[in-house]
């Protein structure tokens, strides 16, 4: 039992150690004195990412923030973020492993920035995926209300327009069709 715990602790240590590298990468993307909202997209799940991008503008309005730094391991998010909002401070593409390591470090962080994690089950301890479909709760509601805490909630009806052929972008945008 004790062995199990110690193994877990030192595995977490190694993950956190790698997570620090990703953290520094993120911090490098922020100029001194700027305070963008950091929005993390750790998954490559199109419905989750679509609504995550769709509600960034509303979130920035509600939190009186100027712009958002998009940190993602999804090509689709990286390539289509500008279609959803023009308040993008910057974009950082991390490898999936880097992103997961950073999320292991996340509980220990007090970053001094507003951080939003567009996920239903990460960081560890978040279990909002269990509510998906409960009494008809939709992914859009869980992302807008749960992830971004947009209360009172009103649906965003505008949809991004795109006439390109990038399959990553098209895959993400199909959620709004």
């Amino acid at each position, binding site marked *: 039992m*004790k062995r199990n715990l110690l193994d*877990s*602790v030192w595995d977490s*240590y190694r993950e956190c150690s790698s997570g620090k590298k990703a953290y520094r990468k993120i911090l490098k993307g922020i100029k001194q004195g700027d305070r963008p909202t950091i929005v993390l997209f750790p998954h490559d799940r199109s419905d989750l990412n679509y609504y995550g991008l769709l509600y960034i503008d509303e979130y920035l309005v509600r939190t009186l923030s100027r712009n958002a730094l998009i940190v993602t391991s999804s090509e689709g998010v990286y390539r289509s973020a500008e279609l959803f909002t023009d308040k993008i401070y910057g974009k950082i593409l991390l490898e999936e492993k880097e992103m997961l390591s950073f999320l292991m*470090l996340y509980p220990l962080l007090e970053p001094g920035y507003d951080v939003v994690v567009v996920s239903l089950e990460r960081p*560890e301890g978040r279990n909002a995926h269990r509510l998906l479909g409960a009494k008809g709760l939709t992914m859009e509601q869980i992302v807008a209300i*749960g992830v971004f805490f947009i209360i*009172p909630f009103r649906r965003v009806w505008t949809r991004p327009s795109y006439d390109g052929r990038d399959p990553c972008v098209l895959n993400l945008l199909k959620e709004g069709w």
Partner: protein
Amino acid sequence: MIASVKGRVFALAKSLAVRARNDVFLHAYFKFKSLEWTDLYLRAAAGSERMIYICPYKGTGDVYLALSLLCGILKERRDETATVCVIGAACARIAALFGFSNIVSFEQKEMDDIMLMGTVCGFGRLNMFVLHADPPNSKMGISDRMRNYNGLNYRDMYSYGVFGMGPELEAVVPGFRPFDESVAEYFRSNRLKPGRTVIVAPSVKTLGRLPEWFWIELAARLGQAGYSVCTNCGDDEDPVAGSVRLSVPYGMMKAYYEYAGHVISSRSGLCDVFSSFDMCKIVIYQPNVFWGSSGAMEYFSLNRMRLCDDAIEIRYQGIEFLELMDTVMLSLADWERRNQGRQHGTYARYYV
């Protein structure tokens, strides 16, 4: 003082661990935490390899509801030797009420550390299951923000949000101890009338408290209407002026309450415990507090949560406490009229 200094040193170490370019501080932080966590983990596991169920929030209602639904699951899986970790002695008594024998009680600070340990190391890896959709001490959750949306109530937050199940998950009523002569003796010695006693329960933890004068005046009006009155009191609480102190273990609550016949309570965790009792249950909800998109009554209603279907639930307006008192008295009279001649309560046959 020492705890405060220790807390600050830890915060500084954590900050250095994350910010420093090399991993010396991070290594030291994990080294130190591993010592602390080993002790907590071994205590939480209580020598068993079985699943450790964690109740991370110190609320009577939260622990009651979580364990009530957990028992619904464990009954099917036949695993009643699981370990349950709670905060404080009161929550441990709730766990005991449900028949758990491996109960470990922690202090709030220790529970916060257990949650951090699980968040960092992974709850699944440590064989831990958290009995809360959104533990306040984990700071990672987002489920609580969905309160009241699409009619999601307090029970749903457990059945869906914790157990990933729906309305099919049964809430098990714990095994309350049967009536015995000591109950009748208590009523006799305190001149309380069986079946004509109102238990008032003003104490609340989460929702707002009604002014003390409300309860004093209500007790007086109940007395004028022919009821005897007692107050449900915690260890360090005083009864409402003009009423008798009632402080009984959870296991004996059903016997005392049903023998009394009536309860008038502010919405608190106690209401979850007495929800299954066969008696007049009047529950008062505070107005103008919002849980997600709607009020406390929409979220915590005993009837909506299907813990019972016979609670009389009242939400007052603003500071209209006098109107509330009238409504409570009218509701009580109405309940008496509807139940006239009916032998309510399992223990009605013992009435003198």
